[in-house]
Structure formats: structure tokens, C-alpha cells
């Protein structure tokens, strides 16, 4: 995101419409995608999109630049998405600061050992495979999912992810590895089956 950090804070703070529109253009896709990945449907993602930018422009006058503008926007977007999520599913307290019990458990060693990288890309990204990708990410516990989305999908650095989620960098790294390991197992289950089919049917 750093290449997009060429906004004039001064212009934004005096509500220069052109600069505001530029900011929205630059960040609407990642914010929408974040909403989609956290909440799982386009309507909720649009709610996240709107409420995030309303909050951003409301809070901009008091933005002090302690973190980068993009990290700050991600932080707001995550909070908005989680607020909607809590409204939808109030039984989920929330997830970000609910202790570190998970971090203290030993990592479970990888099980899936068939190399499926050789599958052709149209098969790796078939519509069926895309459903598996989406389902797998939805199955991750919230706190692992958020870290994976920000770091691996949106490409934030470890430090930016930590700032956006209010976590330590060590915590981000631990959660990221757990997320990657779990996702790899879930996807491997599907892709290994495709490899076996190829071996049987040639």
C-alpha cells in the first residue's frame, strides 16, 4: 500500500473534495474486500465500505499521523467489520483480545504431504476451487483470519498488521503461521484429491 501513500493530509483535513475522492478511490477496493472476507457477503461488505469512509472523514481532523494513513484506515475498517459481525452474531464476543491460550499450544505438525503445486492454474482456481478457498478462510477462527487477510491477502507488513489490529508483532507472526498451516491443510485435502484423480484417470 505504500505506493498509495501520496495524499496531502492538509488537503484532506480541510475537506478538499478532490483529495477525498482520490483517497476513496485508492482504498475502497481493499476496504470492500476486507468486509467481504470477514463477513462473507456483498451487502455487509458494502456496509463496511460506507461506514469506514464515514468514520475516516469524521476522524480525519484529529488524525495525528502516529501510524500511516493506510494502517489507520485498515484499523477503522477492521473495527467496522467486527462491529457488524457482533451485531449479526452476538454470541461471538470478540476474538481479538480474548487471551493467548491458542498461542501457547504447540503447533500441530503438517499432515498433508502430497505436492499439488503441479496442478494447472485453471484447476487450482476453478469455480469449485474458489469455493473451497472461501470456505477454508471462513472456517478459520476470527483472530487468525484477520491476520491472514491483512498480511497475506492485502499485503500489509507484519508491523502494519500489528498496528492495524492492535497486536504485538510476535503475536501477529504466531497467528499468521497458525492461519497458514490450517489453511494449507484444508486446501490440501481438496487439491490432493485432484492430484489423485489425475493419477488414476491420467
Amino acid at each position, binding site marked *: 500500500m505504500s505506493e498509495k501513500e501520496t495524499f496531502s493530509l492538509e488537503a484532506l483535513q480541510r475537506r478538499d*473534495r478532490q483529495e*477525498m*475522492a482520490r483517497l*476513496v478511490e485508492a482504498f*475502497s*477496493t481493499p476496504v*470492500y*474486500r476486507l468486509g*467481504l*472476507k470477514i463477513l462473507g457477503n*456483498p451487502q455487509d461488505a*458494502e456496509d463496511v*465500505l*460506507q461506514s469506514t*469512509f*464515514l468514520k475516516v*472523514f469524521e476522524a480525519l481532523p484529529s488524525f495525528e499521523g502516529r501510524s500511516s494513513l493506510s494502517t489507520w484506515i485498515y484499523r477503522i475498517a477492521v473495527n467496522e467489520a467486527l462491529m457488524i459481525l457482533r451485531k449479526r452474531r452476538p454470541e461471538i464476543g470478540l476474538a481479538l483480545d480474548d487471551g493467548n491460550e491458542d498461542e501457547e499450544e504447540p*503447533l500441530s*505438525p*503438517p*499432515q*498433508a*504431504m*502430497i*505436492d*499439488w*503445486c503441479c496442478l494447472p492454474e485453471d484447476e*487450482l*482456481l476453478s469455480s469449485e*476451487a*474458489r469455493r473451497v*478457498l472461501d470456505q477454508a*478462510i471462513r472456517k478459520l477462527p476470527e483472530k487468525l483470519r484477520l491476520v491472514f487477510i491483512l498480511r*497475506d*491477502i*492485502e*499485503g500489509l507488513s*507484519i508491523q502494519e498488521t500489528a498496528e492495524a489490529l492492535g497486536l504485538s508483532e510476535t503475536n501477529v*507472526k504466531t497467528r*499468521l*503461521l497458525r492461519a*497458514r*498451516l490450517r*489453511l*494449507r491443510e484444508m*486446501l*490440501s485435502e481438496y*487439491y490432493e484429491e485432484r492430484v489423485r484423480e489425475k493419477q488414476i484417470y491420467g
Partner: protein
Amino acid sequence: MADQDCRHLLAALGDYIDGTLEEQICRELERHMAECQNCRVVVDTMRKMIYLYQVEASEEGVPAEARQRLFARLNLDV
């Protein structure tokens, strides 16, 4: 993944994939991977998995109508 070297790889896997692992440890892991197919598979499939999520995400954009409603809501429509 039972071997002690495999367990070392697991502990350093995140930094290795991100390219932030200390050079010497990195060389040790690569020596191990040259001999351990399982660890190679774990690293390769994990990298591929991240790549697939990134490709999928790069194709997801804000639908035109949602974008329009956003700009209207923010009073930014031209």
C-alpha cells in the same frame, strides 16, 4: 515431519516464507529441504496457497453500483 530438523523448519517457517529469516538459518533450512521432500512440499504448497488467495482477491473489486452509492453517501459524486 517427525525429525528434529523438520521441527526447526516448522518453527522458522513464517519468517522463511516471508524472506525475513536470518541468512545462516535460512541456509541450514535449505540444506535440510534438499534432502527432505515433506518439508519441501509444505513450503511449496504454502507459498502456492498464499499466491492463490492473492490472485483470487485481485479479481474482487467494488461493484459499480456500490461504488456509486458510496460516493453519493459521502457527497463526493461529481
